[in-house]
Structure formats: C-alpha cells, structure tokens
C-alpha cells in the first residue's frame, strides 16, 4: 500500500464515555457507517492523520511515475508503449485526485509538494527500488499495483467522504493495471529462456519489497488502533499481507515462476499460505533514505520542480495579465 507507518495521535483510543458531545457524535456517525465531509466537525487528530495518509498516498502516485517512466522510451512494441503511457498517465491522475482530497482538509498541494521535496513527507518504500528489465514493468503492475489494491479496495468504505470517493475512481484503474502487469508477466514467463529469466529475476527482486508495502506488523500499534477506530484504516497490516500472499502465490505458480521463499507453503490447517517475513531492517533503511533509489527519486522530483519554476511563474503571470485586462475592459 502507498501509506506506511502513518502516525496517529499516539494516544489510546478514547471510549465514547470519555468524549465531549461533539466528538461522541462524530465517532457515533463513523461507527454507524456514515461519512465525514469537509465542512463537518472533526477532531484535530483525525484531520492531521488523514493529511499525512492521503498526502503520502498522493506522493507515492507521483514518485511512482518514475520507475515505470524509466521504461516508456524502451517499451518493446508500440502497443506496450501505449499501455504503459496510459498507466503512468493514470498514476499522475491518481496523484491529482488525492491532492484534491487532501486539500479539503485545509492543506495546499504546494505545501505538501514542498514537504515531499524536503523529505519531510514520505512516499511508499516500494518506489525506491530500481526497474532493471522489461519484466519489471510486469512485476510492478502485478505485485505493486496488486498490493496497493489490497489496501485500497477496503478504503473505498473509509469514513472520510472525499477520500472514499477518490478511492472508488482509483481502484477501477488499479485493477486494470494489475491485469496488464500480469499479462506482461505471462508473455515473459512463457517466452524465450531469456524472457523467462527476466520474469523470474523481477519476481525475485520485487517479492519482498512488495510484502514490505503493507508495513511491519501493527497488531500492537496505538496509531493503528486509533486509525481503525476512525475507519481510515480498515484492516491490520498482517491481515492484508496474508491476503496478498494467498492471492499471489497461486498466480506465481500459474506463471511457472518461483516465489523466492523456501517457507512458502499452503497450510491446510489455517487455510492460508505460510511465508517468510521480509527483512524489516532493510525496510527501515529504505524509510531512512537508504533504499537503492531514494536519492535519485527525490533528486528527480526536486529537479522537475526547480526546472518547472519559470513555467509555473510564467503561466501565472500571464493569467494575472489577462485578469487585469479583463477588469480594465469592464
């Protein structure tokens, strides 16, 4: 998923009895499955938590253009190039809806962008991994969009109205991306020996980083407990990770590819796959900025923003001139 390790208030979840009337009414509405809209009263913690979460999700969509953009000019057929372009265009669109959703909470896109560029706000750890072969375009669609869907489908029912509605639009496109990614994997896995090798190599490199997308176990986390009470987080990280593995393991088998985990095995008793945890030290390294591509990704975004400054200023100045000319004419 695209929002990881989101901090909430850090306090325990209050019971309804402990709440002031306003907050109680707010929580009861959420409990009853109602939606909170931008003009409604909301606790400051809810607002801040959502800004962090939606903002991180938006940044992930934007930074997520880079690893796939890396292959657009090298796509092997016109059709594949068109599909990949359309996908990356969708991701930019997702970023845009999500920034709009976050703006309803009283923060501007410019402010969030500055926080991304300075490193203050994060984006998903997954986009700090390189895309090295064409099969990676398959693996990213299949695994990364696939993992994102696990988290985003339940978020269509999240308590914050603008976020829930953005998720409905986004989920449709993400499942399309996932199928297109799987289609690339099929071609690669069933292609020449070299293509099969690329497919296996992509799975080897993307498997554990995909599992990390769900974040470490949050069974004990106070932040998660609060987010879940507010219905801005719908499932625990472990639950979603398990669901992802259960869905993906048979797909890998269908592709004739091997998930790089000796322990991966269907457990008749639990009805789920057993699997190995990713290396959480690596995960925390990536979050601290030491992933394979953190420096390049952030540098690319910063360069785009700096290089684009004169354009944004120019268009703004022109719009101003037009406005004052219109006012003078009236």
């Amino acid at each position, binding site marked *: 998923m695209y929002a990881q390790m989101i901090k909430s208030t850090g306090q325990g979840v209050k019971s309804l009895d402990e709440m002031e009337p306003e907050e109680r009414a707010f929580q009861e509405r959420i409990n009853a499955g109602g939606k909170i809209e931008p003009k409604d009263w909301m606790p400051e913690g809810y607002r801040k938590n959502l800004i962090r979460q939606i903002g991180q999700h938006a940044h992930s969509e*934007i930074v997520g*253009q*880079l690893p*796939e*953009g890396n292959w*657009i*000019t*090298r*796509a*092997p*057929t*016109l*059709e*594949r*190039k*068109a599909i990949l*372009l*359309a996908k*990356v*265009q969708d991701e*930019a*669109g997702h*970023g*845009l809806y999500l*920034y709009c959703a976050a703006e309803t909470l009283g923060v501007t896109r410019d402010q969030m962008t500055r926080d991304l560029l300075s490193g203050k706000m994060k984006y998903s750890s997954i986009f700090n991994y390189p895309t090295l072969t*064409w099969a990676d375009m398959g693996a990213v669609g299949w695994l990364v969009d696939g993992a994102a869907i696990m988290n985003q489908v339940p978020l269509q029912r999240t308590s914050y109205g603008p976020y829930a509605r953005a998720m409905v639009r986004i989920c449709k496109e993400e499942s399309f991306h996932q199928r297109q990614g799987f289609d690339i994997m099929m*071609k690669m896995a069933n*292609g*020449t020996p*070299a*293509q099969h090798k690329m497919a296996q190599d992509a799975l080897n490199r993307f498997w554990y980083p995909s599992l990390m997308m769900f974040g470490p176990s949050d069974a004990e986390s106070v932040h998660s407990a609060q987010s879940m009470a507010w219905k801005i987080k719908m499932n625990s990280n472990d639950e979603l990770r398990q669901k992802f593995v259960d869905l993906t393991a048979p797909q890998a088998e269908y592709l004739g590819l091997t998930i790089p985990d000796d322990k991966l095995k269907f457990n008749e008793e639990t009805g789920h796959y057993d699997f190995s945890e990713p290396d959480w030290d690596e995960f925390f390294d990536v979050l601290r900025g030491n992933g394979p591509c953190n420096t390049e990704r952030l540098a*690319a975004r910063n*360069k*785009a923003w700096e*290089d*684009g*400054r*004169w*354009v*944004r*200023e*120019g*268009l*703004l*100045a*022109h*719009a101003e*001139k037009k406005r004052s000319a219109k006012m003078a004419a009236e």
Partner: protein
Amino acid sequence: MNDPLFEFCCRMGDNTLVLGHRVSEWCGVAPVIEEDIALANIALDLIGQTQLWLGLAGEVEDAGRDADALAFHRDVWDFRNLLLVEQPNGDFGQTMMRQFLFDGWHLAMLKGLMTSSHDQIAAIAEKSVKEVTYHMERSSDTVIGLGDGTEESHKRMQDALNVLWPYAGEMFVSDNVDAAMVEAGIAPDPAALRAGFEALLADVLGAATLVRPEDDFAHKGGKNGVRHSEHLGHMLTNMQWLQRAYPDATW
C-alpha cells in the same frame, strides 16, 4: 524511388512515432502534474496514430512488415520524419514550441487528408484530427501564456523559437513523393499549407509577444531520409534496443 504511397505513410507515421517518443521522455518530470497528464496524453495519441500510419505502410508495402517491424527494425536512413520532431526536448518551452510548430502543420495536413481519395487515409485523418485539434489548442495556449508571461519565460520562448525556426521550413518543402500524392488525389501539397501556417503564426506569436525570425533558411533531409540529425540515432538506440537485443522474443 520506393512506392510513393509507402513513403508517404512512413513520413506521417515516423513523424508521430519520433515526436511521440520525444514527448514521452517528459514522463514524471513535467513542471506540474497537469502537464504530466497532458504530455502523456499527447504522446499516447501520437503513438496510437503511429500504429495506424505504419500499419498502413506495412499493408501498402506488402512485404510482411507490420507497424512494429517498421518502428523497431529500421535504421536512421530509412526514417522519413521531419528534422523538427527529432530535435531534443530542451526545456519545457522548447518542447512546447516544437509541438506548436508541428501541430500547425500537422493539423492542416490532416484536415486536407480527410478528403483523400484513399479511404483508409481519410479514416486515419478523421480520427487524428480530433486529437490534434486538442494538441494545437494546448500548445498554442502554452506558447501564448509563456511568451506573454514573465520576462524570463518570454526570453526562453523567443530563444526556443529561434533555435527551432530553421527546422520549420522543411514541413512545407514539396518533392516528387508529394507530387505523386497530389496527382493521385491522396494528399495536399505541403507547399500549399504555408500560407495558412503563416496566418496561424501571426496570430499566436502576436498574442505571445514573440517575433517571427526573418531568416527563412531551412534545414532539409529528414522527410526524404537523406540526412537526419545526429539526434535520431541516439533515439533509435534507446527505442529499438530491446527488440534488437532479443529478436526472437515476442512481447
């Protein structure tokens, strides 16, 4: 000379392929998200048009080459795109100026092709005109906005125009392929599109407070493939690498 109809389809398809590639190089690094989306959209349209033009070129040639074979397995000297579209992106202003100059020609050419005696060409033109009308709106608005923006944006746009101007003239040079197309009622004469282009320039550059360069010297050699710029080879190295490195693969 090759079959002029094949040549003509390659010219149209290579223009859209090469420009689509250039525009797609902006992926993820445009000045604002709205531009990321718009540029991806333009690139996507151009690649779609490429599939139609080069697909038709393959049919006309009837030698077993499809659009992908033409896109990924020809070398520089077989490309028939204008020199303008292979020019590097430069800054965003240069990219949009190149787009505007090309759109001005492209839209007029496609409008002429809508009444082509060749049904498939008329159909491709009809579909493309809708897309290119939007490209033209966007590129001319951007040229105007940035030309008449800040002092810096104005200077950058004038510089972009000056750099690209020597590549504009080739769009309107007619040769024997064009003559054969005119003769068969397939396509308009590019030279005849010049007057409309000048009127467009006067409008847009005027609103943009930019000055049309006086020297009309024009580089040539793209549309007939005689002498491309050095840039095209590098583009093909990137674009065709995967297909050529794994020729027995299907993707």
